[in-house]
């Protein structure tokens, strides 16, 4: 079942079109990477899902229902431009934000207490936000995003401002939330975290969706039958149609060659053809990284 479906979304501003016919489907319990260069329209789409702005055309379904204001409680949003009231105390602020999402006071208090224990920050309740370090503030911000236990959690660049230790802590929390059945939309420029966390991705460029699907399918789609071989001896007179993309010295004694072959040739065939000619020290198919796919697709 799809948790969220955006169908043919258009959004125009006075002098440019922010989204043109964008449709995405986000399966339940996925970690959905929403990728794209700056200004591509990601934030606009996220704001439409959050009902901060409305789409000019198209519709959004959440759990099969048309998105309406009551769904605010089902969504937790961590915007890229985020912050908290600096002069307010941590506890008070979290209770306020949780109640704005529709929680009762007592429920808010007990859930916040749980989160404080979970993130090992008990005893911060009476501190003012301005007295906390940036990383600490990010933790509070994360709690504010998930405290009402939304089914859909939207994180826009969640790791900025975190040191590696805290970034890991939050990453673990994201994975835990997914295990509990939550769905996560994850918008970022940091491709290594997309590679690590996402199950699905969509790529938006210049207001249009240019790519989407399961991460693995997309990776396969971008396979180019390219192999990296580390070998000694020269590759000459091979009985194989190939293109030598790159040749370089590898660890001073070997050569590393990058070969691209025709689509219908399997890795084993390539290997068999190579063995008579050179001594092979390493052989692997080169699968594109998300970063490479991103750059290739945007071009």
């Amino acid at each position, binding site marked *: 079942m799809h948790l969220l479906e955006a169908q043919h979304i258009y959004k125009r501003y006075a002098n440019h079109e922010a989204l043109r016919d964008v449709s995405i489907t986000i399966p339940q319990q996925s970690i959905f990477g929403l990728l794209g260069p700056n200004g591509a329209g990601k934030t606009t789409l996220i704001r439409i899902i959050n009902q901060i702005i409305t789409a000019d055309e198209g519709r959004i379904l959440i759990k099969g229902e048309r998105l309406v204001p009551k769904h605010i409680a089902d969504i937790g949003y961590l915007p890229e431009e985020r912050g908290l009231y600096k002069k307010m105390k941590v506890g008070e602020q979290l209770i306020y934000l949780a109640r704005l999402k529709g929680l009762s006071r007592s429920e808010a208090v007990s859930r916040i207490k749980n989160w404080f224990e979970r993130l090992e920050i008990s005893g911060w309740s009476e501190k003012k936000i301005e007295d906390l370090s940036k990383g600490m503030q990010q933790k509070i*911000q994360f709690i504010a995003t998930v405290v009402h236990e939304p089914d859909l959690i939207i994180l826009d660049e969640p790791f900025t401002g975190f040191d590696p230790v805290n970034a890991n802590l939050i990453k673990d929390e994201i994975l835990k939330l997914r295990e509990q059945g939550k769905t996560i939309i994850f918008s970022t420029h940091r491709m290594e975290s997309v590679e690590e966390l996402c199950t699905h991705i969509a790529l938006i460029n210049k207001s249009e969706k240019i790519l989407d699907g399961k991460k693995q399918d997309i990776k396969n789609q971008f396979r180019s039958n390219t192999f990296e071989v580390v070998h000694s001896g020269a590759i000459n007179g091979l009985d194989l149609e190939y293109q030598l993309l790159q040749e370089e010295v590898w660890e001073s004694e070997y050569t590393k060659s990058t070969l691209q072959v025709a689509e219908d040739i399997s890795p084993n065939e390539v290997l068999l053809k190579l063995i008579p000619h050179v001594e092979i020290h390493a052989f692997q198919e080169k699968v594109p990284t998300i970063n490479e796919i991103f750059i290739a697709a945007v071009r």
Partner: protein
Amino acid sequence: MNKIGLIIIREYWTRVRKKSFIIMTVLGPLIFAGIVVVPIWLASSESTDEKVIAVIDESGLLANSFESDEESNIHYKYISIGLDQAKAEFPNSNRYGLLYIPKIDLSDPQGITFFSETNPSLQLLGNIRGTLRQKLRDIKLERSSISRETLEALETSVDINTINLTQTGEEQQGDAGVASAVGYVGAFLIYIFIFLYGAQVMRGVIEEKSSRIVEVIISSVRPFQLMMGKVIGVASVGLTQFLLWVGFTLIIVTVAGNFFPELANQPPSTMPMGQISENSPELAAMQNISQAFQSVNVPLLIFCFIFFFLGGYLMYGALFAAVGSAADSDTDTQQFMLPVSAPLIISIVTLAAILNEPNGTLAFWMSMIPFTSPVTMMMRVPFGVPTWQLLLSMALLIGGFIFTTWVAAKIYRIGILTYGTKVNYKTIGKWLFQRG
């Protein structure tokens, strides 16, 4: 609970607990009470020390003219030594002053001098001058064979009573002085409160923008709810402060009145107004001030004050919120502040003209236009305003409030999500017509 309610409560509580609010709440009444109590207290404290004034009368005309004044504790003592000797003795004499009256020409008395270590108060000098003038006049009268009684019979005191004819034909005793004072104070208070709390709304919006919490909040509530919550929350703070000020001022004045009971009963005579003789119209007016106050319809006045304060504030508050939303910092607000505050400033500047003609054309139109009506109407109410005008003005103000809030909301919802762009009037114009 309603989300707007949550926002109002947050805005209210965080502001009411601020140190600046508490300090202002305590200091305000002290300042107000100070304005009332200090002059009276000063005037009275001055008279508590015994003052002895030596009088050298070389003219021989004014023997026993100066009588000691027990109330203000001033004693006159005639001495019959020469001026030079008296001056020499003065530093060790413990006397407050030395009044020297040389041989004088009655028609042109010259050379009367008062010596003292410190500058004498205006009241004291006024008393001395008054006594001298009266005494010399008596002597002159005597020499011209006119008795005092004849003179007093010649003087005619003219008093003009002002009576307002209301539409129902009732007669109401009016007092232009009291009405203008009440009008001025009310109009100024509204002006100051709108600016003070309007600026608070604006700064609140800028704070939310610059701390980047605004997008977190508006993923939970509509921008309009956030804006109205803030405007109403700050209005409640303003009302709270106003009521506390009124309460504290009353308490302080009452307590001060208990400490100096003699002051409370006779403020006019202790004020430094030595020259005012007893049957002067000013004094009479002051003594009748409480009576004159009854001519002002106090419940109507209070109702109008609260209505026009709230209406004016709500109308401007939304505009101030819009200005804040278009800015990234306080300094960016300048260019938009002028057009927003200009009508308010105009209404304050024209107060004097309104006062001259509280029912003139200018007064009428300015009290109808919602941008100026809160201040102008407050000035007019104590003079009596036809009911239809009052109701029309109120209706127009409500309409104005709905209109500015609608406009402000359109600017606000886009402004709060716009960072780092230089916003000018053209962009604001675009925002007005942009879909959400």
